[in-house]
C-alpha cells in the first residue's frame, strides 16, 4: 500500500507567557483537557518578549500557524508588557494580512493561569482554523528571489 498523499499535519507554535498561559496550559494538562499534538509551546517570560522576528522565523521555517498567549490586559505580571505586545502583534498581523497572508494563521489570546479550559478551547479552535487553511504556502514562499 503506497501513501499517495501525505495527510496534512500542521506545525503550530504557541508562545506562552510563563505567568499566565503557560500555567494555563499546565492546568489544561492536569485537567486532561486535550488539544491536538500539533501545538508546541515555547515558554517566554512575558508576551512582550515575543519578537515579531520569532513569529516570522517560525513561518519561514515551515510553521502553519503561530499563536501568542499572554495575561489579560491589565493583569500583566510586569504591569505593562502585554500592552506593548498587543500593539506589536496587531501591527504585525495587519502587515501579514496586507501582504496577502491568511490572517487566520496568526492569533493572540489572553489566557490566565486559571483558565485551563480556555487554553484548551483556544488551541482546539486555532488548530481547527489551521486545518481549514491548509498548508502555509505563502509565508514560506515570500522571498526576494524565485
Amino acid at each position, binding site marked *: 500500500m503506497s501513501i499517495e498523499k501525505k495527510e496534512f499535519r500542521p*506545525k503550530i*507554535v504557541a508562545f506562552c507567557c*510563563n*505567568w*499566565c498561559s*503557560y*500555567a494555563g*496550559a*499546565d*492546568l*489544561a*494538562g*492536569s485537567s*486532561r*483537557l*486535550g*488539544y491536538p*499534538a500539533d501545538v*508546541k*509551546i*515555547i*515558554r*517566554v*517570560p*512575558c508576551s*512582550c*518578549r*515575543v*519578537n*515579531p*522576528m*520569532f513569529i516570522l*522565523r*517560525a513561518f519561514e*521555517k*515551515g*510553521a502553519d500557524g503561530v499563536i501568542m498567549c499572554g*495575561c*489579560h490586559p*491589565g*493583569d*500583566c*505580571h*510586569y*504591569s*505593562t*508588557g502585554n500592552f*506593548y505586545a498587543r500593539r*506589536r502583534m496587531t501591527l504585525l498581523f495587519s502587515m501579514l494580512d496586507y501582504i496577502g497572508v491568511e490572517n487566520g494563521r496568526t492569533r493572540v489570546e489572553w489566557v*490566565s*493561569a*486559571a*483558565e485551563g479550559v480556555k487554553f*484548551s478551547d483556544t488551541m482546539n479552535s486555532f488548530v481547527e482554523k489551521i486545518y481549514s487553511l491548509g498548508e502555509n504556502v505563502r509565508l514560506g514562499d515570500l522571498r526576494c528571489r524565485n
Partner: protein
Amino acid sequence: MQRIGVFVCHCGSNIAATVDVSKVAEMALMEPGVVHAEDYQYMCSEAGQAKIADAIHEKKLTGIVVCSCSPRMHEATFRKAAERAGLNPYMVEIANIREHCSWIHKDMEEATKKAVILMRAAVAKVNLNTPLQPGESRVTKRALIIGGGIAGIQTALDIADAGYEVDIVEKTPSIGGRMSQLDKTFPTLDCSACILTPKMVEASAHEKIKIYTYSEVENVSGFVGDFTVDIRKKARSVDMDKCTGCGVCQEKCPSKKAPSEFNRGLNNRSAIYTPFAQAIPNVPVIDREACIKFKTGKCGICSKVCQAGAIDYEQKDEIITEKYGAIVVATGFDTINLDKYDEYAYSQSKDVITSLELERVMNAAGPTHGHLERLSDGKAPKEMVFIQCVGSRCSDDRGKPYCSKICCMYTAKHAMLIRDKYPDVNVTVFYIDVRTPGKNFDEFYRRAVEQYGVNYIKGQVGKVIPQPNGKLLVQGSDLLDNRQILKEADMVVLATAIEPNPDVRKIATMLTASIDTNNFLTEAHAKLRPVESPTAGIFLSGVCQGPKDIPETVAQAGAAAVKAIGLLAKDKLMTNPCTAHSDELLCNGCSTCENVCPYGAITYEDKEVNDHGIREVRRLAVVNSALCQGCGACTVACPSGAMDLQGFSNRQIIAEVDAICR
C-alpha cells in the same frame, strides 16, 4: 560545543503510559551536543537526581535537559540537583512532556513524536545556554497586610508573634471586617463578636503591629524583599492622639441621616461616627459627605462638645511611604449587587433582604436590636423563605459562575436560630443542592432539618411577588414532587453570592499579582502553593483568593503568615539572573528600551567603547540587574538587537522555534 545529558522521566505511568520514553531518550542521542541520554521512573526522586549527578561527573556534562513535568513544578528541583553536582543551575532546561504532552494526548505514537520535538527544542536551547550567576538583594524585615478583617488580623498576629514588624492597612474606620458584622458563626453558633473582639484588641495592643485604619494603599513599587508602598491616610477630621473615644460627638451630631455601612444601610448613623461599638481604634471619623459643617460651613457642634479638642476640620489626607519585605493581601469580600435580580423583588420590597442583612437584623446591636421583624412594618414574621444560590453558579453575566461556598451553612444556621428563638415561625429553604463539606457541617444541616423542622425544598424560585396585603408570594418549583409552589411569606432572605472586594483589581494591578476573571487573586499553584501569589513576595489570605468560611480563612491566614515569615527570616535573597543585558557595540543609545521598561531599570551613560579599533564615547543603555525583573519588553523594542535577555535570548528562542518547525 556543549556536552548535554538528556534525562527522560516516566513519572510512573503519567508520562510513560502515553509517551514511549525510551524512544525519546534514544532520539535524544541523535541531537547535536547530546552525549548522554537515559530514562528513569521518577527523575525527581533521590535516585533519579543521583543519576543526573552521576552523569554530570562521568560524562563531564555541561548542560542538562530533563524531559518531565512542567518546569513550574520541578525546574527548581533539577537545578538544585545540578548545582550540587557542580554544574551551573542555569544550564538545566525542562521539556514539559507531561502537562503539555502525555496528559493531553491519547495516541502513543503522536504523543511520542511530540515529546521528541519538545526534547529537541530544549536541547537546542541548552546548546546556547550560558552559566548565569544570580545577584543578591536585601530583605526589609517588615510585612504589610492589606485588609483588616479576620484574615488580615490573624496573619498580622502570627507574623508579629514571630518577632517581625507588621503594618495593617484598612480602608474603613475600624478593623474587624465582615466577621464583625456577623451575629453567630457556624457550626458551633458562637457569638461572632465574642471571638473576634479579643483578636482585634490583641492586634491593636501588639507592640509589633501598627494599624492604619481609614487608609488605602496608593502605590507599590519594588519587588520581593524590598517593596516601597505609599499609604494614603484619609483625613479622619479627628485627632487620633487626642480623642478619648467618649462618644459624645456622635450623640450630639445633628446629622443622623447617613446610611450605616455597618448595618448594611438598614438604619442610619451620624455624620461623625465609629462604625460599631467595639471599633478599633475607638476614634470616630467625620463623613464629610454627610457632615453639615463640611456641606454648609455652619454647625461645628462636635467640636464644641469635644472635651479633648480632638475635632480637626482642617485635617488633610496624608501619604506615608514605607518599605516592606512582604505583602499579604487580605481584602475580603462583599455581596454582589442585586440590581440584575429584580425577579426576587429585592429593590421593590423591604422585606426581601440578603443574608448579611439578616445577620444585622438578628444582632442585638443591629437596626431591630436583635428582634426578628419585617423591615417594612415591624411586624413579626410567621413565614420565612430562604432562597439559595442568588447570583452564585450563574454562567450568564448577571451572577457569578462559582459556588459561594458559605451560603448553605449560614442558611442552615439562620434557619436553626430562627426556629430555636421563634418556634412559631415556619422556615422554608429553596435550594438547588445543599453543599456541606466540612467537619460537623452536614450534621449541622441535618439538625436544622431533623431537630428544628426546617422545610427544605429542592428547586429554585422563579419570582417573588409582592402582594397588596404586604405579603410576599414566592413562586418556586419543587423538583422532587414535580410541582410548582406558590408560598405566601412574610420575609424572604436571599443567599446572595459573594465576590472579592471590588477594590482588589486595583490592588492586584499595583502588586502585579495575577487575578482571575472573577477577581479572585490567583495562587502560585492551585494545590501546592495555595497562599502565595505567582508574584514573589505577595501572599494571599482569606476570601481574596477564593470563597471560604471563617475557620478556613483563619487557617489560610496562618499559612500566609508562615510564608511571609519564611521570607522575612532571610537576610539576603537571590535575584533572578534572567535579566536584560545590552551589547555595547550594538547599542544606538536611542532610548527606546528605556521607554518601555516598567522598572526604570535602564539608564543611559556616556561610555568609551572600543569598536573594532575605533575608540569613541557613546551614549549607551545600562541595565541595573537588581531592578530588572526580566520581562523582555526592551529586547523587542530595541531596533538593533543590542538588548537581549539572559536565559531567554533571541538566539535561544529562535533555536527553539527552529527545532519545533524542523
